[in-house]
């Protein structure tokens, strides 16, 4: 099945977020590892860019990202268990 643009961007976001999930645990037990911190900063920047692009195009991923002043769009975007993104 061909992936939609939204699915593609969500995959990119999931990859970048996962790198941070993994580095977070490593840094908890290696807080002075400069190389790991470098990766953290690099991927945090990439993830923030992708997330901003995603939210601008497809709507909020968390409830602090609602931009509309006419509609609470938090309830409009798909729930993750639906398997649509």
């Amino acid at each position, binding site marked *: 099945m061909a992936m939609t643009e939204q699915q593609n961007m*969500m*995959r990119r*976001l*999931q990859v970048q*977020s*996962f790198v941070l*999930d*993994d580095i*977070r*645990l*490593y840094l*908890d*037990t*290696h*807080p002075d590892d400069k190389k790991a911190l470098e990766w953290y900063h690099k991927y945090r920047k990439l993830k923030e860019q992708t997330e901003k692009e995603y939210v601008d195009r497809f709507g*909020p*991923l*968390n*409830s*602090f990202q609602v931009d509309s002043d006419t509609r609470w769009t938090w309830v409009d*975007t*798909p*729930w*993750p*268990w639906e*398997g649509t993104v």
Partner: protein
Amino acid sequence: MWVYEKKLQYPINITKPDAKAAKIIITQYGGPDGELGASMRYLSQRYSMPYKEPAGILTDIGTEELAHLEMVSTIVHQLTKNLSLEEIESEGFAPYFVDHTVGVWPQAASGMPFSSSTFQSSGDPIADLHEDMAAEQKARKTYDNILRLIDNPEVIDPIRFLREREIVHFQRFGEAMRKVQDHLNEKNFYAINPGFDMNPHQGR
């Protein structure tokens, strides 16, 4: 506090219902070595962890387990949402269906409900971290057994991801254990319980 994100940690998109698979996989939601117990174990234990780095590991792994809980329940939901009544009966799903329809409820594969008696919060950091390392191996074992029983690649893929995370968590808990021991008497790690005896009103 926690902030909810409308995003799975790893993608799940299962297109074919399979009640037999759901009955097995639900055990990683509410079973004895499941993700609900894992999350509650680590998030409960952190209050008696007096050292900052191991407390960080308990908090962050406990949080990641919440994401795994969501993944396992998503797998169960997607495997059951389009089941026909015929499939529910022929695939042995009727005993679950009669109580829960196709809702997701934390139980073991055997039907035993989720119980906090599957984990400890002992108030003793060394005892807790040993339990945590064993818990990660027991969860890895359950995922290995699930992989022996499942043949749908759409299910196998996220289960492999979850299995791999258990191994990473085991490693991190081992490092947290070493950090705790670094604070203790190297000739006798058990001389005091740093989760109790360092409190000036309780110490001996």
